[in-house]
């Protein structure tokens, strides 16, 4: 795939490289191992009530937390990176920051969407509902997701790239103001949330459980890094393609201009030589 392209697009027309392929292979392997650890090897959350002796807990639903919680953290990370890159867009005004901001926002939105989906699936057996309107954290996460959906919609508009970069940076910087709200909502609105303050803290986290959770963070980090790398490279190629298009258009105009110059010069020379071969038409504007 790593073919060399025509002038202007750089050395490659693919986002893959030997190292990124190795990273991809490791990432996919980690996802598979996490799946086995979380959904097969770890025990479900079953606790015995000290007085009644009844079983309670999150049972098998807790397994989803090995995926859900790391996804949340990585979504925050991606959006945080987007915010930093957006500041870079406004201060440094270079395409590198813009491509980074776009890539991290897009990957972050995928993660945020997965957070909402896995949270909803987890909530059905544990909260007895797919969706809880009264939960502040759920609502603020949804708002965050919608704000970045708007960001991505803005990125898809056909605008001057520099102006689009600045507009998108402002949208991103306003949107990330929601992240502290999402994160602290459990403490700030204790009576308006079903999210536990520290669900995992109440569970028996040791040995394989702790390892699986830790491994979940590592895996989600690998997925984030892998996706970011490829999305960044796609963005960079898009940028190169745009620049290449602009350069080609300018070259085309120059060529047209040169051609007109030649015609004008030829016309002037013909006029100086006389109207003999012009069929009686005189004047220096024939070629222009």
């Amino acid at each position: 795939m790593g073919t060399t392209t025509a002038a202007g697009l750089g050395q490659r027309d693919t986002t893959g490289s030997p190292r990124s392929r190795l990273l991809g292979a490791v990432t996919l392997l980690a996802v598979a191992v996490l799946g086995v650890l979380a959904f097969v090897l770890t025990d479900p959350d079953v606790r015995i009530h000290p007085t009644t002796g009844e079983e309670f807990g999150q049972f098998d639903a807790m397994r989803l937390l090995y995926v859900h919680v790391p996804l949340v953290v990585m979504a925050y990370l991606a959006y945080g990176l987007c915010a930093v890159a957006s500041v870079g867009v406004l201060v440094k005004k270079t395409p590198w920051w813009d491509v980074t901001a776009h890539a991290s926002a897009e990957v972050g939105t995928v993660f945020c969407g997965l957070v909402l989906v896995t949270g909803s699936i987890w909530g059905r057996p544990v909260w007895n509902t797919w969706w809880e309107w009264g939960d502040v954290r759920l609502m603020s996460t949804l708002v965050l997701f919608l704000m970045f959906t708007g960001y991505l919609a803005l990125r898809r508009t056909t605008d001057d790239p520099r102006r689009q970069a600045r507009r998108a940076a402002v949208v991103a910087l306003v949107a990330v103001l929601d992240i502290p709200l999402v994160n602290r909502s459990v403490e700030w609105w204790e009576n308006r949330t079903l999210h536990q303050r520290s669900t995992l803290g109440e569970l028996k986290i040791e040995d394989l459980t702790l390892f699986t959770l830790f491994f979940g963070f590592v895996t989600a980090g690998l997925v984030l890094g892998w996706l970011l790398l490829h999305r960044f490279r796609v963005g960079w190629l898009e940028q190169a393609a745009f620049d290449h298009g602009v350069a080609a258009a300018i070259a085309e105009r120059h060529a047209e201009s040169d051609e007109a110059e030649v015609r004008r010069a030829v016309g002037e020379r013909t006029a100086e030589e006389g109207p003999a071969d012009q069929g009686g038409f005189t004047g220096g504007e024939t070629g222009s």
Partner: protein
Amino acid sequence: MGTILSDALLVAGRDLRIEARSRVVLDQVVPFSVLVLVLFGFALDADHHTLRTFAPGLFWVAVLLSALLAVQRSTALDRADGTDTALRMSGLSPASLFLGRAAAVYVQVVALQVVLVGGLLVFYGVDVEDPLLLVVAGLVAGVAVAAAGTLYGALASGLGVRETLLPILLLPVLAPVLIGATRAYEDALGSAAVDGWAWTGLLAVAALVLTVVGASAHGALVED
């Protein structure tokens, strides 16, 4: 600072004079907002009890949808005949441009609220239990709506898809304002036992943040 405020008043005066002459908000946006209230009434089967219970939320949804039209109108005004370019060349600072535009939108949003409160009283039969809270929460939430609307109006300005993009960008940002303002109005109208003043405090924080961000970021949006 004094220059920024006097320039902002100049811009706001210009926008409001254009509105007073064209009467687009008065002739189109205000009837639209009342229409939204009436449609909610039809949708909820004109049950007074239900309407009174949900009046705060329905009121603020109507305000946001109508404010969206007012913002689009304000943005369109600045795009017409190269007005935005002329304003940039005028030497007015981006912050004063933002504050002036936001102030003009704010006046329109408050006017919309006055009409819609009348609609709540007449169509939904609500009782106002705390008029002061109703007024203060409305005024504070109006600042947040106007600031966010002006900021995102400038963001979407000049894009071919402005009409469809603006709601996608603006409404999620205004969702927390909708929640806070609705809770405050639930207290003011006595439809729920909540601390409306605490929610008004949160609205004030949101209004302040959005105004500061808007005034700071406007320069980046009108740079060229």
